[in-house]
Structure formats: C-alpha cells, structure tokens
C-alpha cells in the first residue's frame, strides 16, 4: 500500500476504541467519522485506507458510507451550513432562511462558494424543534433564528 494518508492521531484514536467492540467491522462508522474529521470529506484514497485498516473490501466501505448523509464524498466549504426545513422549522419560516442563505452566498443548496468558504445544505429535523427554526454550522447549533440573526451569525464567520 502507498503511504498512509490518515494521521497517527487517527490510528491512536482507533487503537483506543478497538477493545470497546467485539468486532473490527463495528469500528467502521467511528473510523469514517475520525477520517472525515481530518479532511472534512472522504476521498477515495481515505476510504481505501479505512478499508485496509478494518480489513474489508473498499467496495464494502463505500456501500456502507453512502447509506449515511453525514459523510461527504466531495470537499465542503470551511463552513458547512445545514438549515433544517422539516415540519417544526418550516412552520416557523425555515424556507425564508434557506432562501436568504442562498441569495446572500450566491449558491444553491448542495453547492459550495468558489472561495471554498461556504457550503449550504437543506437538513432534516435536527432535534431542536422547540427553538425552531434551527440550523447547524459545522458542529454547532444555532436556534431561534430569524433573518437578522442569520445575517449576524454569517457576518461573524471569518
């Protein structure tokens, strides 16, 4: 195999998790998360290396990974904005927020700005319906949104 792409930190994190599961395959989702944490997305090379680490065929990694919406198979912007448009958020005006994001950043859902700074996605329920409308930017929740608040949050991003 070619040189490793994944870091030593990846391998030491996985090493610590190994005794926690009775099968190596169970480490697949944790490994994909850890790999995505390093690059922001899962390239072909990264998935091949995960396959080698788990000891399964690379096609099996793809078959599983593509089932899950959080894994990115192409690069995303520095800020990945995910606006919930499910029922509770929609009742509180989520579509307006999403449109505002699209207009302001000049991109459509699932696109990334040319400077690679922002990706916008439409998301299913985030579990923040009581503080709707809600969105995530990378790992953080933003709730009780309106257009002004959204503008402020986007304006503060470097």
């Amino acid at each position, binding site marked *: 195999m070619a040189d490793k792409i994944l870091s030593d930190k990846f391998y030491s994190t996985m090493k610590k998790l190994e005794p926690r599961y*009775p*099968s190596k395959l169970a480490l697949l989702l944790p490994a994909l998360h850890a790999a995505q944490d390093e690059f922001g997305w899962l390239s072909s090379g990264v998935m091949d290396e995960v396959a080698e680490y*788990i000891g399964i065929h690379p096609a099996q990694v793809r078959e599983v990974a593509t089932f899950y919406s*959080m*894994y990115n198979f192409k690069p995303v912007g520095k800020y990945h904005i995910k606006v919930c448009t499910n*029922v509770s958020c929609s009742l509180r005006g989520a579509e307006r927020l999403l449109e505002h994001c699209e207009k302001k950043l000049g991109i459509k859902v699932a696109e990334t700005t040319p400077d690679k700074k922002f990706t916008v996605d439409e998301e299913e329920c985030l579990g923040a319906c009581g503080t709707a409308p809600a969105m995530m930017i990378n790992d953080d929740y933003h709730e009780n949104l309106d257009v002004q608040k959204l503008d402020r949050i986007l304006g503060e991003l470097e």
Partner: protein
Amino acid sequence: MSEQERPPEQPFEDSQPETLFIQHFCEEARPLSYYLKNMSGYSALKKALGMSSDEVINEVKKAHIRGRGGAGFPAGVKWSLIPKESAKAKYFICNADESEPGTFKDRDLMRYTPHLVLEGMAIGAYAIGAHTGYIYIRGEYVRETGILQAAILEAEKAGYLGKNIMGTGFDFEITIHRGAGAYICGEETALLNSLEGRRGEPRVKPPYPAIAGAFGGPTVVNNVETLAGVPFVLNRGGDWYAKLGRITNSGGTRIYEVSGHVKKPGLYELDSGSVTVRQLIYDYCHGILDDKKLKAVIPGGSSAPVLRADEIDVVADIDPMLKIGSMLGSAGMIVVSEDYCLVRLLARIVRFYAHESCGQCTPCREGTKWAQDILDRIEGGRGHQQDLGLILQVADNMNAKSLCALADAAAGPIISFVTKFRADFEAHIRGGKCPHA
C-alpha cells in the same frame, strides 16, 4: 381550565408540580458533583447492586415505565425477556438517535442530566446481566457526545462505571457510538446494524433483539428518557413511580415537546396522563401564535396521525391517543394554525419519509415516492380529482406490509390528513393552486 377562567392572581405556572427532570435542565446540573449532591448520585445503582436481578426487574415492572421512544412497550417486561443464561455476551443499548421530527427531549436530558442516563443504563445492564453498553447517538449531537463522554470519564474515575463497580464485582463499560445522519437508524434493528458497521437497514424479525441483537447477543434497546426514569424507580420505589401516572399502566412523568405555532414552545414535564392536548396548548404554551385559530395538531412526532381542532380534549397519553386513532409516539406535539397550508405540510412530511426510507421493501420505497409525487402535484395546482383516492390506496398498500414501522409512519399521516382535511386538498385541486399562496 381555559385562559379566561384562571384567576389572574394565581399564575398558571405556580401550579406546576415538581418535576423529575426539567427542574435540573441547566448547565450547572451537568457535573458529577451536582448529581451527587442534588440528584440520585448513583445511589439507585448502589441499591440495585444489592438486590437480585429479578428484584430489580420486578421493581421496574411495578413502575409501569412505558418506552418513551415511541412504541410504549413496558421497560420491565422488555428486560424480563432477556434469557438468564446466554453463551453470547449480552448488550444494553441506549437509543439516542432522536430524529423523529417534532422530538427534542433526549438532547436536553443528555446535555443537562447525563449521569441520570448513565445510571439508568447501568441499572438495566445489571438487571439483564450485560457488561457492555452503547449509547447510539445521532451524529449531529456532537456537543452532547462530548458531554456524555466527559460524564462517562467522571463516573469511571469515581467507580460508578467500569470494572468492579462500587466494589461489588459488577463490571459495566459504556461506549458512545455516533450515527451518521440516517433517521431509520432510530429503529432498533437498523440501529443494531449501524452499530455493527453495516448499512442501517432494519432486520427481519424474529429473531427479536432480546434473543439475537447486537453482535448476535441478547440485547435491550431503550430510549434516553425511559432510562433517565429508572434511577427514580429504584430510589423511590416502583409503586411511587407508577402512582405519578394518572392512568392505569402508564407510570412516571412524561416530557411533552411542543413546537410549531404556539406562543411558548418547549418542553413540559407533567405526570403521565394528567393533561389534555388542549391544556398543553392553551394553558402551558399560552395558546396559538398571534391568537390565530388552531387548525391541526400532530400529537406524537411527525408520524402520528393528525388531530383536528375539535379532537384536542383527548388526554395526552399512550392509550387515550390510540383510542382515537392517533398515537402519543415520542410526545412531540406539532401545533399548526389556520395560516399554514396542510397540503404543503403533508407534502413535507411525506418527502421526509420518502427520503429516509431505507429502500428494502417495495411498498415503502415505491409508496413513499409515489405519494410524494401525488402530493407535489396537488400542492402545485396540478392535481386531479382521482388523486385523493389514489393516494389513499397507495397509503393503504404501505400500511403494515413492510419490514419496519417507517412505512406505517408515512401512511398514517397521509390517511389522516386526506380524510380529516379532505376539503383543503379538494380546494387545491379545484382551484388549480394553493388558496394560502
């Protein structure tokens, strides 16, 4: 009691009873030190470890804790189905996938009272003889994952989790397993596949998880809120917990999640069966936003059949809801005012289920897509008169003809919206556009 009848000098809030959970929903409650001082502090686990496993299970049975994940199965009965002797290791799993639209209680339980969840798991594990536990948490809950991880470390350090817990010789280790964005992984057998490193597709049952669950071993899967109630049962007794409920066979308190068009959305914890949907909306949530008219309520997460405004005097508990043809589900109440188009709402719900169908069963995979097309057509003003009959037929074909309850979760809303609000759908078709637009 309606808004008008209430004496003004006695604000409604003052009459809210003591709660088990939400009085602790603040960041100060998070550390072990708070948990030791103000809450169970693992005293319930200590007590359980001094009892036989059957005694623990009996106490939980007496408590009538019904599963808070949606199906309402009694936790004590679930635990008793685990074989005592097993050649394979047993597993105790906490379902923290929380992805049903309208549901948002588990997130607060985990971020404010993480030790309650861990202690509940440890008690359950002892009762069934499991030494390994997993918390399957939805991938988006990154902060909550960190909080739970920190709580596990605290508990391990203090000897409440890990090897030889409190010197009793009982071992129980908890690992957090993150999901990766798939609603279906909340279904317990899909969850097990996802935990094992596979696609999150529900399994054919039987075998049930109690016999062959995670990694082929006997397994219990319980919801976060179900488990958070367990320490109270051990500390104060199953009878005490059962009596909190005002309805037979439904003990404890219940966290209602109200969202949508109410003035005060949020979490309301009340004794099980002590409140009607009307009281929740008009008393606790202060009524409809902008004092509009109520149009509809989805009472148990987006998969629950919808209620009309004249059906909300129903008691918000499992059996009363079933009796009127809906369900309490996860107790996520979505309130809709006259301002929002119900055709659009149903179209959004069905789009969700079509998107989240794992695709294994033809009636579910094809039915949800077909229903979505029909609804988009009607919403866009391109519907035909026959479409309503057609969509009911499609829904009927999905109902109870698939491997898991996701198909029913899509069929229930379709059937209830179209039959209860038929005029709204017909107006779209006749007028060739949305009357709300």
